């Protein structure tokens, strides 16, 4: 885990701006793709989480939280309160769980596992938020579907993170 203690304020500002814009572009690209033909609509890969994961794994926790919060604010501006609440709850729960596992297992846990856990808990966080907004316990019927979907999405984003790392690494230099 590199710590970018040597970064200047300006460098950090620029880094945040670039990472956040990559996150926005990824989510726009994802929205433009046709919906996946699966049983539950709304299931997606969460491509912009690649940026959050990159921030957590290779920069620091603060950077990752910042990107997650900025993402939720962007959703608030473009898609409204409910969507923003979902983005925020999913993002924060996912980050908290990934951080927890990183602290607990350190070098023993792989990025693939972390990514899968992050995606699964992103869904759990969102479902919790949905169950508060949509006052119904029956919504938990979807948990198994969302767990499996999260697992697949987490594996996919981990693979994409692996592919895009050479490019992202340049940002730190």
């Amino acid at each position: 885990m590199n710590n970018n203690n040597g970064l200047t304020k300006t460098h950090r500002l620029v880094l945040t701006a670039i990472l956040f814009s990559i996150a926005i572009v990824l989510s726009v690209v994802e929205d433009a793709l046709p919906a996946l033909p699966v049983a539950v609509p709304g299931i997606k890969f969460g491509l912009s989480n690649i940026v959050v994961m990159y921030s957590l794994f290779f920069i620091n926790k603060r950077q990752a939280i910042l990107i997650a919060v900025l993402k939720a604010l962007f959703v608030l501006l473009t898609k409204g309160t409910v969507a923003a609440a979902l983005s925020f709850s999913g993002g924060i729960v996912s980050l908290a769980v990934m951080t927890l596992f990183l602290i607990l297992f350190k070098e023993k846990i792989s990025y693939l596992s972390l990514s899968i856990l992050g995606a699964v808990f992103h869904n759990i966080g969102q479902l919790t938020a949905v169950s508060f907004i949509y006052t119904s316990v029956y919504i938990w019927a979807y948990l198994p579907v969302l767990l499996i979907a999260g697992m697949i999405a987490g594996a996919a984003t981990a693979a994409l993170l692996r592919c895009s790392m050479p490019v992202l690494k340049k940002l730190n230099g």
Partner: protein
Amino acid sequence: MFFKKNDIIVVLSIIIISGIWWLAYKFMFSDKPVKAEIYYYSELAYTIDLNSGAEKTFSIPQNDNVIFHLYEDGSICFEQSDCPDKVCVHAGRLSVIGETAACLPNGIVLKIVPKNNRGADDPDIIIG
């Protein structure tokens, strides 16, 4: 650091937890009588008993391009729809309380609810 053997443990535990959850959920609600409610632009348009054991194909009066199919085993699905994305048809057969399928282009929502507990007057959604 990217892939490790213990990834298998993570993957397996997620699969096992979802399996157990799904079974527990099915078991908890399987003996409860259920009905399906069909909403047309947020208004309850049609209610159908799923435990009757009858098999039939029907549509709601507001839109006869969308066809529902009720199966003998008490499941129901969107069989056909004229919408472009067919998300409603992909949702497949629903039978467990809480399952929902929607055809947003046509403004139709199909949901499975307990037969007695909740009425159409209960709030569907509360946004603060």
